[in-house]
């Protein structure tokens, strides 16, 4: 009797403590929530509102119908997807083996090589983009050296087009793929591979049936991040694309800077945002999105 009463008192006390703790937690996160509301929810809402205003300032769908009617808009969306898909694919082809290489190295050596991945990551995007311009152009370092060493005779065009854009973007995106993939690889129990070969699997077979499937969540998280970042990319295609690779972000800039059409720019921003959310939603069906944020296992 006395024991159950004590239990009840305890339970009430615990519930009270829990409430207090929840309130405290909420109190702690309130400033962050407020900031998100002020700098994200309100502006995005405003963007949404602007996108439905026509040239005369009244409600209109013209900013959206324009995207459907005009061929040039379709081309810009196609170009944006083409660049994003190609960049993601190339980043996987280069980044996965690199992450694998890093994961095989002893820890100390791995951290040395990791600097090679991180150093560009910490350098300004604009600086790296212009560095590629200097390297790739006709009188650039790569052409000059290749001609001096006799690899080819005439300067090869490597920039001011899609190729140059892809080279620059893949380089900038690599860390975003390598880091989560590397993390996934490091967390794999090495004994699993030993067990596989013990059971008679060839190294190749063990890799594809045991190791690779276990790295997929990390790889997928990295690839998704790369793809989404690519969708909104501006600087690199603007500098390395020679005015021919026109992505949605560049159209947004020209809508504002040249035509001063906030509605058209807002509508493009809304469409880009919705596309990104759809992609994230589809992706969430296949993997735990917490991984991207670094949580969960």
């Amino acid at each position: 009797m006395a024991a159950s009463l004590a239990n009840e008192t305890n339970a009430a006390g615990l519930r009270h403590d829990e409430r207090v703790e929840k309130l405290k937690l909420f109190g702690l996160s309130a400033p962050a929530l407020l900031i998100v509301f002020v700098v994200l929810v309100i502006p995005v809402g405003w963007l949404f509102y602007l996108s439905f205003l026509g040239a005369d300032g009244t409600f209109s769908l013209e900013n959206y119908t324009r995207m459907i009617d005009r061929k040039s808009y379709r081309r810009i969306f196609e170009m944006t997807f083409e660049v994003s898909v190609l960049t993601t694919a190339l980043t996987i082809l280069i980044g996965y083996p690199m992450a694998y290489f890093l994961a095989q190295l002893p820890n100390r050596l791995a951290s040395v090589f990791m600097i090679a991945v991180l150093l560009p990551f910490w350098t300004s995007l604009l600086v790296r983009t212009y560095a590629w311009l200097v390297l790739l152009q006709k009188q650039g370092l790569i052409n000059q050296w290749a001609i001096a060493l006799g690899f080819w005779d005439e300067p090869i065009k490597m920039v001011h087009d899609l190729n140059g854009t892809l080279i620059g973007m893949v380089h900038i995106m690599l860390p975003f793929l390598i880091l989560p993939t590397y993390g996934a690889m490091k967390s794999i129990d090495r004994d699993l591979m030993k067990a596989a070969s013990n059971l008679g699997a060839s190294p190749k077979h063990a890799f594809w049936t045991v190791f690779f499937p276990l790295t997929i969540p990390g790889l997928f998280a990295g690839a998704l991040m790369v793809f989404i970042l690519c969708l909104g990319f501006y600087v690199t295609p603007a500098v390395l694309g020679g005015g021919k690779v026109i992505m949605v972000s560049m159209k947004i800039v020209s809508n504002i800077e040249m035509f001063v059409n906030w509605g058209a720019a807002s509508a493009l921003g809304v469409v880009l945002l919705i596309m990104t959310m759809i992609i994230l939603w589809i992706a969430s069906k296949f993997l735990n999105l917490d991984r991207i944020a670094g949580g969960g296992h």
Partner: protein
Amino acid sequence: MILAATLLASTAMAQENELTVASWGGSFQDAESKALFEPAAEAMGIDLTQETYSGMSDVRLQVQTGQVTFDLVASGTGSAARAGAEGLLEPIDYDVVDVSNFLEGTYSEYCVGSDVFSTTYAWNTDTYGEDGPNSWADFWDTEKFPGSRAYRGNSVAGALEPALMADGVALEDVYSVLDSEEGIERAIEKVRELKPHIEVFWSSGAQQAQLMKDGEVDMSTGWNGRFDTAARDGGKVAYSFNQGLADVDCFAIPKGAPHKDLAMKFLAEISKPEYQDDLPKYIPYGPTNMLAYETGEISPEVAAMLPHLRKMQLCSFRSLLSGTSSGKRRRMKCIRK
């Protein structure tokens, strides 16, 4: 108390003499700074702050949000005319600014001309030698002058006229042809013809200089001052004024500028011949105040390097930059596609 009062008074005084000027940066603003801004600020005892900006869209943002920080901005005449019509600029007080010796057509209700530049063509002297193209027809002639081209990709200004001249329209008839939709269509069609050879669509003056200096393209359209910079930096670059388009940069005062009256006086000061005659020392852009040619500061050799309106057609933005934004959008799109 007394100390605080003096401090207050002195900051108030300092603010009275403060002025913020915005221009486009690069070799252009360097030249303006050395020839106009710094000497005039010193003569008037002004505490001058210089900023770089990207054009009238910045002014529009400042005026619309009521946070105007610029007192004076450099602008193109076309965008200044549009901004003025939109109510973004203060009308110029011509009782303060003396334009009696200005070249005809280089000042308007909202904007006072600062210099005359030219939109023209440059070529790589390694590829074509000193005797390069001498007309827009040559610029289009990829058999006589094989090689890559760069062309304006971010605005119609100075992008349609060359195409018409390449198509055989005489310099003085360009704008009457461009007044009609068919004329614009004709120009766009001609740009399309050159498109396979256009390697880069440039979007800034700095980019023109870089493309030509590094030999990335063999010919480019652009502004003579930028080509001159590229050549001075050791680039294999030459350019011609033949069939070039003369155009005017100008100064304007944003609506609600914090030091509007001082800005007007400052504008009057830098429009005087004794300042304008120094500008060509730093960049080959000609003065708008014709008295600047008479001070003896501009030597005949330098004068020969400056864009001269007599040889060229003064750019008319009336037909191109006025009108609806959808019309402009269409023209722009056609050029790039």
